């Protein structure tokens, strides 16, 4: 129950942040990525704003033995740079530059019911599924 409340609250906050930041407007994202066009640097401020706050949280992790909601921390530990990381980032970048959506904003904006957003989310889910199948081959 605690986990559900945490998830819901965090999701609402996160989605609100995305909307406020302008990330749920693919045209605005593309205007940021298309540095040769009518450039809109706004999204640089999103990541700076986010990191400025989130950095503080990471520094608190070592001081907490456990997460505040109980259980244990399950955090990334890998430090190696491998082909999957890079190729994955290339493919993601291609998709992001093509469509102007990354996962969070797409899921958030999908609630509007706009057909093109729903199409993107559907295709994204297929892509996730396809990757799982590919890894399990």
């Amino acid at each position, binding site marked *: 129950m605690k*986990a*559900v*409340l945490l*998830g819901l609250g*965090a999701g609402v906050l*996160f*989605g*609100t*942040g995305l909307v*406020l930041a*302008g990330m749920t407007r693919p045209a*605005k994202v593309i205007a940021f*990525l*298309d540095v*040769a066009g*009518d450039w809109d640097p*706004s999204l640089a401020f*999103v990541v700076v*704003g*986010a*990191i400025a706050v*989130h950095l503080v949280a990471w520094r*608190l*992790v070592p001081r*907490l033995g456990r*997460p*505040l*909601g109980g*259980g244990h921390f399950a955090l990334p530990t890998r*430090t190696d740079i491998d082909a999957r*990381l890079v190729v*994955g*980032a290339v*493919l*993601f*970048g291609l*998709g*992001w*530059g*093509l*469509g*102007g*959506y990354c*996962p969070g904003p797409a*899921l*958030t*904006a999908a*609630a*509007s019911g706009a057909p*093109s957003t729903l199409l993107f989310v559907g*295709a*994204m*889910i297929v*892509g*996730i*599924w*396809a*990757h*799982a199948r*590919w890894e399990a081959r």
Partner: protein
Amino acid sequence: MSDDFTPLASSLGGALIGLASALVLLVQGRVAGVSGILDGVLHPRPGEFAWRAAFVAGLGVAGGAAALLAPALVSASSDRPPVLIALAGLLVGFGTRLGSGCTSGHGVCGLSRFSRRSLVSVITFLAVGALTAVLVGRWLGSP
């Protein structure tokens, strides 16, 4: 520069994203990477499903509220043809899972902890994203 430049709203939005991610980290003990969260909803594992499903629902609540109160903020106006949007979705879905993260997982959470992997990922997807947007923009005839 575009006259759609919104440094204040974007910074504030970013701060909320950082705060939400901080909650997931400090309360749930997990990284708030949306591609991983969605993956965990699609491929449920015991103990890892409920908070993720609730998080995705929360995104939907925020988006739904925006659609009612400020619909211009969630408009799908990229003017891209459906076939490109579908291709984009496939690439984002596959690529974020292959690369273990997206803008939130690597960009916010990873960079905040000075992860080398995330730095490489972010530089890569930003550069490729920019190149793609530039090329597609010229091809489709943007201003």
